[in-house]
C-alpha cells in the first residue's frame, strides 16, 4: 500500500506544482491546498500504514496493532497550521483583488525596477 501511496503523493505534488506555476491566483492557492494534502498523506505513509486499530486505547487490542499515533499527531498540527495559512492566503487574495483589480499573477510584477 505504501508504494501506491507514494505514487499518489507524487501525483499530488506534481499537480500542486503545476497549478502553482500557472498565472491565476486561485489556481495557485488550490495548488497550495493540494501541496499540503500531499505533505500530510506523506507523513502518514512514512509512519507506516500497517496499524489495524485506531490509536485509542481499547480493550482487547494489543499495543502492536495500533496505528502509529505520532505521525497522526504531527499531521493534526500541520493541518491546523495549513488551515490558518490557507485562510490567510485566501483573504490576502481577496484583498489583493480589491486593491490591484486582478487575480493574474503576470500583472502583479514586483518592484524589481530594472532601470
Amino acid at each position, binding site marked *: 500500500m505504501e508504494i501506491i501511496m507514494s505514487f499518489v503523493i507524487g501525483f499530488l505534488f506534481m499537480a500542486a506544482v503545476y497549478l502553482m506555476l500557472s498565472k491565476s491566483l486561485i489556481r495557485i492557492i488550490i495548488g497550495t491546498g493540494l501541496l499540503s494534502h500531499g505533505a500530510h498523506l506523506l507523513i502518514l505513509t512514512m509512519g507506516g500504514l500497517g496499524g489495524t486499530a485506531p490509536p485509542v486505547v481499547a480493550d482487547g487490542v494489543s499495543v502492536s496493532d495500533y496505528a502509529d499515533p505520532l505521525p497522526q499527531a504531527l499531521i493534526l498540527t500541520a493541518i491546523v497550521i495549513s488551515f490558518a*495559512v490557507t485562510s490567510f492566503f485566501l483573504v490576502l487574495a481577496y484583498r489583493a483583488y480589491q486593491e490591484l483589480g486582478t487575480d493574474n499573477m503576470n500583472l502583479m510584477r514586483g518592484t524589481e525596477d530594472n532601470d
Partner: protein
Amino acid sequence: MINLLLFPILIPLLFAAILLFFPKNISLQRIISAAAAVATLISVLFLLLKVKADGVQAVTLGSWDAPFGITMVSDMLSVLLVLSATIITLFVIFYSMPTIGIDREKSFYYPAVLFLLVGVNGAFTTGDIFNLFVFFEVLLMASYMLIVHGGEKPQLRESIKYLLVNVISSALFVAAVAFLYSVTGTLNMADLAVKIPQIEETGILTVIAVMFLVVFGFKAAIFPLYFWLPGAYHAPPIPVLALFGALLTKVGVYAIIRTYTLFFTMNIAFTHELLGIIAILTILAGCIGALAYFDVKKIIIYNIIIAVGVILFGIAQMNEAGIEGALFYLVHDMLIKAALFFLVGIVAVIFGTSNLREMGGLMKTYPVLGWVYLIAAFGLAGIPPLSGFPGKLLIVQGGFEGPQFWGSIVVLATSLLVLLSAIRIFIYAFWGEPVKTVPLKKRSYYQMFVPAVILVGITVILGVGAELFMPLINGAGEVLLNPSIYIDAVLKE
C-alpha cells in the same frame, strides 16, 4: 529555575496575548510592548549567565524523557542568537513608534512584532525538528501579517509571492520531517544525533540532508532560492524591514548550522562541499544584486543575501576557525543589518524616496548621520576593528585551512563589492550637491536616530571589544564542534 530557557519565548507570548485586549490604546500598546521586550531581554541575560556558568541547558517539556517529549535546549549559540534577536526587537519597537504610523499601531502591530519574536526565539531554542517547524510557522505567520500590514498595493502584491514561497517551503519541510522520521523513527535532534551514526547506509540520509538544506535555504535565502527576498523585503515599512532583515533569514541560517553540525554529519564530503559551493554562489548572486540597484533599501537587502553566503561558507568548512568565524559573523550581521536599515530608513524619510539618484548633500545638513552611517558601512564591509572583521577573518582562515581555498579568495574579493555597494549610498546620499529634502521634526528625527546610533554603538563594541564576546563565541563553537556536549545535556539528565 529549570524553565528559565523558556522565558524568552513565553514572556513575549504572554505580553502579545495581553496586548490583544486593547488594540486601540496606543500609549499602553507602546509601553507594554517595550516592557515585554525589556523583560525578555532581562531573562535572556540571566539565561546567558546560566549557560555560561553551567553549560548547555535543556528542559524536556511535560517531564517526559528526552526523545519522547519536546526538548528545548539552550546552548551558547542559541542564547547568543536569542539575545541578538531580543535586542533588535527592542530597538525596532522604539524605532517603530515615530515611523510606523498611528493607523498601524492601532491594528495589532506590536503584538505581531512580539509574536515574531516568539517564533524566532523558539526556533533558536528548540531541540525538536518538528517543533522547529511549528516555530517557523509562528514566525512566518507573524511575518505574513507584518509584511501586509497596512495593505498598500506593493505590500499586497509582494506578500502573495512571499507567502507562496513560504507555503512551499513549509510543505517541503513537513515532507522532509516525514522522510527523516521514516528512516530514524525519532524527531528529537539530540536523539537524531545519536541514531544517525548507527545507520550504515548513509545515502538516504544524505538525500534527506539535502532536502533540509533546500527547506532551510528557502528561509535563509541561499542561491538559487533567494529570489523571493528582494521584492518581499522591499514592500513593508522600514521597521518591519529591519526586523525581517535582521532576524528572518538568520533563522534559516541557524537551522542549517544546527542540523549540519549536530546530526547531518554522516557524509560531510558531499553535503558540506555542496553547502560551501552554494554559499559561494549565494555571495556572488547577492553581490550582483547589491550593485545593480540604486535604491538604498535594495542595496542593504541584497547584502543580507551576501552575509548569508559568508556565514554558510564558514559553516561548510567544519573546522574551528570557520565555525567560530561564522558564529561571530552571524551575530554581527544581525545587529549591523538592523542598524543599517534604521539608518537608510532615516535617509529615505528625509528625502522622501529610496532612490539614490534623487539624493545628495546630506553631509551638510546631517553630518552626524553621515558619520554613523559610514561607520556602519565599514562595519558591514568588515573593515577592522569594526565588528565585521573578526568573523570574516576567521571564516577566511577556515576556508584556507579547509577544502575550499578559492572560496576564501571569493569571500575576500566580494568584501570589496560589499564595500562598494555600501559606500555608494554614502557617496550619493551624503556627498554631492544638496537636493531638496522633506522637512522633518527634530523630535521624530531623534526618535529614529537614537536607536540607530545605539545599535551602531553596539556593533562597534562588538568589534573593538571583541574579546568580551570571544569566550561566548568559543563556547558556542565548542558545542557545534563537539555534538556530544549537546547530546549529553539533552539525553542524560
